[in-house]
């Protein structure tokens, strides 16, 4: 709530947080929207919701984030929340191999129920627990490349890369949107593109762009 700045924003993006139960989705959300971390957090029932407005590439973007319950049977319910989402953070726990192996199931879930253009970012959370690591960063990276996703390891506890993860996905989305807008503009033949926004097509799914902490 601390970040509910105002009602003025250029874009409103809906993002869903998905992944196995207990990988830290809710803490990623609270870290991002309230800069809080709760070691003893409670299970998410159904979905939880929060927003935050931030600057991405010079634009004010309001991120609407839906945090979903991880238990398998909740998918029938949570998939209803995929509608209209332009981005998804697919989270696994680097200390839980199974949560990484389930990434594929979550991907097919997204591909079956979300918009086909949804931007997906894979996130390996709990990087602070390096001594318990069971998924190597390279494995995550490799899978992300294979599936064409961006990738980051985060630690909600240490506030490491959480901001960056959201910045990355939001700017990816922003680029796609402005690319589309540009294409539409050109198709309509209405003169030169507005402003000098660089639209790097090849880079649209690339990862890690901006530094963190814009707020």
């Amino acid at each position: 709530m601390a970040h509910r700045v105002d009602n003025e924003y250029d874009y409103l993006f809906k993002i869903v947080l998905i992944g196995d139960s207990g990988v830290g989705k809710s803490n990623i959300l609270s870290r991002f929207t309230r800069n809080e971390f709760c070691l003893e957090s409670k299970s998410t029932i159904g979905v939880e919701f929060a927003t935050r407005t931030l600057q991405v590439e010079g634009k004010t973007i309001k991120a609407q984030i839906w945090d979903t319950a991880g238990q398998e049977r909740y998918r029938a319910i949570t998939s209803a929340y995929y509608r209209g989402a332009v981005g998804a953070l697919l989270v696994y726990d680097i200390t839980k191999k199974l949560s990484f192996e389930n990434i594929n199931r979550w991907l097919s879930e997204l591909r079956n129920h979300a918009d086909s253009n949804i931007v997906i970012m894979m996130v390996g959370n709990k990087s602070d627990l390096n001594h318990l690591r069971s998924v190597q960063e390279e494995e995550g990276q490799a899978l992300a490349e294979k599936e064409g996703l961006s990738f980051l390891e985060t630690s909600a506890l240490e506030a490491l890369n959480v901001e960056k993860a959201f910045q990355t996905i939001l700017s990816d989305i922003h680029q796609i949107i402005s690319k589309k807008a540009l294409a539409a503009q050109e198709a309509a033949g209405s003169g030169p593109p507005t402003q000098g926004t660089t639209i790097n097509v090849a880079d649209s799914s690339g990862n890690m762009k901006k530094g963190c902490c814009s707020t």
Partner: protein
Amino acid sequence: MSLRVKKKKKQSSADEENTEDIKPSEDSDDEFYDVEKVDPSEGPVADSANADSGTNRAASQEGYFPWKEELECLVRGGLPMALRGELWQAFVGIGARRVKGYYESLLGVVDGGGDSKGSDSPTKECGDGKPKASQDLSSEKWKGQIEKDLPRTFPGHPALDEDGRNALRRLLTAYARHNPSVGYCQAMNFFAGLLLLLMSEENAFWALTGIMDDYFEGYFSEEMIESQVDQLVLEELVREKFPKLVNHLDYLGVQVAWVAGPWFLSIYMNMLPWETVLRVWDVLLFDGNRVMLFRTALALMELYGPALVTTKDAGDAVTLLQSLAGSTFDSSQLVLTACMGYQAVDEARLQDLRNKHRPSVLSSMENRAKGLLAWRSTNGLASKLYNFKRDTEPLVSISTEQLNDSTDGDANQETSSGNIDDMYHGLTVNTEIDSMPDPKDQVIWLKVELCRLLEERRSAVLRSVCLKYPRSSPV
């Protein structure tokens, strides 16, 4: 314990002798609970579990309880905290369900022997005899989820120390074994945790069983069908009662279910202030069904709708509604608005609406599992059965022959015809026929059981699709 309840009752109700009058006429010494349980269910509730023991008496019940309205008022006014645990147990009717040794037997070593532990199985809940047979087969895959959720249940609460968590683990494990078609579903950890705060472990088990099996049947099972149906029902009710608000929400692209879904699934726990949650539970448990979920949601919409209309985007609307709900400290206002303002929203109305919306939930589930032939062919029958199971008055109209016919029809359609037969066979073996006084009751019981089995099979099929589906599954 029942004594204690009675004693306390005396203070609040002068007509207490009436209870005494009824008691001898019935069977068990725990009758008090049974009476309590049946009493609020005004007439034949279409609840399957009530059907076998409740309906006959419920009809003639009204006259015996001149103090019913008074009691209802008292419940709506909020139960005293000191009595809450006892009264909840009475409302849920745990005395009538309790079977000595059952809880321990569920927690006992899981060995192959499907013995019935020498206990006369509860007549109340049809699933009771069954779990033991299928227990060894189910891999207890819910274990991991329970472990994950133990520390995430009221974290930091002093009662949930090491011992508290162990009790919570036992309780959830016992329930999962008692009703494998539900197993464990997130949210139950909170229900169980709350019950443990208010009553002894075994009583909490019976209360949880009552709540899950009677009040929320089909809600937390693998498919969560009823939970989805209820959201469609609520949506229709909100549309009917608050057209202006819905107009605005439509404009913003907000679905009522986005917010109300978690409300219902958690029975408002963690969604409203604690005192308010308890007040809602008081009424819900007293009512004997989940009507109060709807009434509370409608009351919240009534209270906060005007504020919602001012929001400018979907995120703001959802955030505002959540935070307003979370600060509903005037629990009396909420409960009274809910109970007085929405009396017309009763169980019969809800059942009608559920029957209306259920097919669309079932068909969208079908779409989820698209491409699966087996699933498609069973769906027709399963949903049909499912529907008349819930019907309010099918008890006489549907004969066993019909039921058998349709089963055969399905079996023929299916390549795996043995499947259903096996289940049906297993079903008859496990029945507690002796304890069913009336053949009509037996028929109902069998129908319900068959539906449940079909449901179970359907979810098994669905799961197998999920396993097949992932594109490049390394799992």
